């Protein structure tokens, strides 16, 4: 079976459509980050207390709410966990904001929540599935680490691509990957889903994955450049994308399949993680064709135009001297 035998699509000719598409999604995400939902940070980065409770019976949210109110728990947020199918879940997340700027008493909220639960639900029963309490220091530290890990891994890949290809290849790949990250975080902002440590792991994965896709195309461009030095870069880039197209679609499709199974079967804990990957695989595949490769051509065009201008500028001067 073969899906794409010999495609001959003019990818570079569609660059304005691509640019428009990328701009719409980047700007939508950016606007949401700036003016709408912001960057929704989970307890890992924001600090605070998050307690996941599983009740023996499906709980009445209002009842849980009033139990917390009576126990003097302040500013809490109650969120019912959806478990995919239409079934009503009996798992609830109770989240409290961080209660002081220092690390002392970082777990005050936990005792209050536990007391409220055991006072109100000792008959019907409940199990605490998970408790995350992150103090202000740890929150800032985790946030800093996540940002640094991302920047360093981008730098590492840029250096490797510079070493293997040319600087412009590294820059183009990093710009493409940055574009993917922006759009994915934008998707989290638009859908108001929280960024957690595991989501950061997913974003780093998508960076690695998108980079992969880009490297495969770049490799082919390098190979074709060595074969025919006469042709202009745009033709070679177009041919390279077409030659690797069937691999791109297949690999991305299959990776998408594994990620999709993670999204469907992975459960609530991995929901954010797999959501980031589902979005990331799609956008990462797109960007290697629509962002990274056109950048190479655009850069070369710009450079040769500059060279011509430089030549045009120096020629008369040379003549004058002669």
């Amino acid at each position, binding site marked *: 079976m073969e899906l794409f035998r010999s495609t001959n699509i003019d990818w570079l000719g569609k660059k304005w459509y691509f640019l428009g598409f990328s701009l719409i999604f980047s700007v939508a995400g950016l606007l949401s980050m700036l003016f709408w939902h912001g960057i929704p940070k989970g307890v890992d980065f924001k600090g605070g207390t998050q307690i996941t409770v599983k009740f023996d019976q499906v709980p009445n949210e209002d009842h849980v709410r009033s139990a917390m109110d009576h126990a003097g728990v302040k500013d809490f947020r109650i969120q019912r966990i959806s478990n995919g199918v239409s079934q009503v879940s009996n798992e609830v997340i109770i989240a409290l904001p961080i209660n002081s700027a220092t690390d002392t008493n970082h777990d005050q909220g936990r005792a209050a929540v536990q007391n409220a639960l055991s006072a109100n639900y000792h008959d019907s029963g409940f199990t605490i599935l998970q408790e995350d309490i992150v103090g202000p220091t740890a929150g800032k530290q985790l946030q800093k680490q996540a940002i640094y890990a991302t920047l360093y891994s981008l730098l590492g890949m840029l250096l490797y691509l510079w070493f293997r290809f040319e600087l412009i290849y590294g820059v183009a790949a990093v710009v493409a990957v940055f574009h993917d990250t922006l759009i994915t975080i934008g998707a989290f902002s638009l859908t108001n889903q929280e960024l957690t440590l595991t989501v950061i792991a997913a974003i780093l994965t998508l960076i690695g994955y998108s980079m*992969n896709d880009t490297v495969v195309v770049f490799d082919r461009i390098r190979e074709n450049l060595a074969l025919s030095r006469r042709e202009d870069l745009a033709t070679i880039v177009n041919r390279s994308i077409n030659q690797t197209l069937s691999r791109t679609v*297949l690999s991305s499709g299959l990776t998408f*399949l594994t990620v999709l199974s993670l999204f469907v079967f992975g459960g609530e*804990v991995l929901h954010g993680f797999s959501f980031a990957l589902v979005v990331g695989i799609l956008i990462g595949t797109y960007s290697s064709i629509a962002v990274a490769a056109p950048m190479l051509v655009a850069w070369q065009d710009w450079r040769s135009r500059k060279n011509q201008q430089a030549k045009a500028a120096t020629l008369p001067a040379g003549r004058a001297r002669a």
Partner: protein
Amino acid sequence: MGKNLGTKTAIILAVLLFFTYGIIGIPHGSLKQSIADRIHLGLDLKGGTHLVLAVHVAEAVGSTTDRTVQQLESDMPGAGIAGATPAKLDPAHPESLTITGVAVGQASALRTLLNGPNYASYDVASQPDGSFKLTMKPSAITDLESRTLDTSIETIRERIDKLGVSEPIIQKYGLGDNQILVELPGVDDPARVEEIIQSTAKLAIHAVDPRGPWASETEALAGLGGTIPPDSVLMKGEGSAGAPPMVYLLKRAAEVEGIDFRDAQPSQDINGRPNIHFNLTTEAGERFYKYTDEHKQGSSTPGAMAIVLDNSVKEVASIQSAIRDSGEITGAFTQQQAEDLSLMLRTGALPASISYLETRTVGPSLGAASIHQGIMAAVFGMAAVMVFMLIYYRGAGINADLALVLNLVILLGFLGFTHATLTLPGIAGVILTIGMGVDSNVLIFERIREELRAGKSAAAAVQGGFAHALVTIIDTHVTTIVSAAILFLFGTGPVRGFAVTLTFGLLANIVTSVFVSRVIFDSHLKNNPRGAELSI
């Protein structure tokens, strides 16, 4: 082509066996049990408590300079220096202290004293006003801080060990931030663990001044005529049921302190109330015997002693008879408190106070559900991919599927051998490895198809396909491994788990997709090198 196929097949089988051993070890009992013993699961999969705490190492510096002030007070008269006062002045700089009021003729004697071994960790500077300033050397501070962190880890480990938690992890955390990571599998009562770790449990026995006790500090000051004697200190009691807390005047220097206790056990007094029974070391026992013998009831100087825990008077008792090496602490304890307290006494005090930065607990049922879902996702993902490869690449799909299975075996074997921890994101890393493994095979197969379309023979197509794809496979894998390695270096807990499986998986992948798949192609072509048809 086709050279050494036998050897290559043998190598593959050996690798398969080796890593299968990595996963299950020497099989014992059920297969599930064997695997569970080899592959270490993270807390997110097996349930437990994860704590990150910060040690306030600066306190250790402060208490060291405090001791130096005391040391100076006792050393200076012996060195012939009178009238000078050592003191710490600036709370913002716990690492320095000053000696003021040094008589002109005594400065050189003081210098000689300060050059002695007791003060070797200080830089000494004489000030224009004739006073001396001692500042702890930066190297000494660094050293003290790292010892404080090490001692804290030791103390915490002893406390945790005595709680009977199996396979706890207690280690330094972060990059030089004086933080400690504590991971306790199976523990779902973090509040109690936090309490036990955090308590200082500094126990001491002090002589009680017969003046007093008083109802408040103001009354105590009035009773003492406005000043507290320099060798004494006022300390508040706990106050038992019904009685208000009293203020006692205690000798500042303890008769017996933390280091002198040999053992502490929870027990019960004659009324059946929980209390704590302690034993002293032989040396301290002798000292204590001498002291209690001199001050027991009926002697010329009868007295009372106070049991002080963490700077609060737990109990005051008149000395009934000479005590050699054991005693009891009673108080308003519950049985659990008595147990926890004696645990803390046995393990000694933390050298500095701590605060918690992060507390995470995963209940055992969630862990079990997560691992179930994670494995389901991995199995479904892999099955879907394998079926698709068979349909799309027909015969060559078998190569890819075998390579994938071997990849998974090597990856899990790696985890077993290195005792790396498999976390939930780690399972996701496994799934991603599957994706990348497929990618390598697709790259190779698509290249072989291209070569075949160009009219090459089967053998030449395989040769060319692998050669061309290899460069790309190495480029893509190295780029991802670079990012995974950086993730490992700068990431934390779960993210690290992800980086570990991804790195192992990609390394295994390079071997399986390039080497194993090739060997299968070659053995297929071996029998009929010229006319063989490739099923691809």
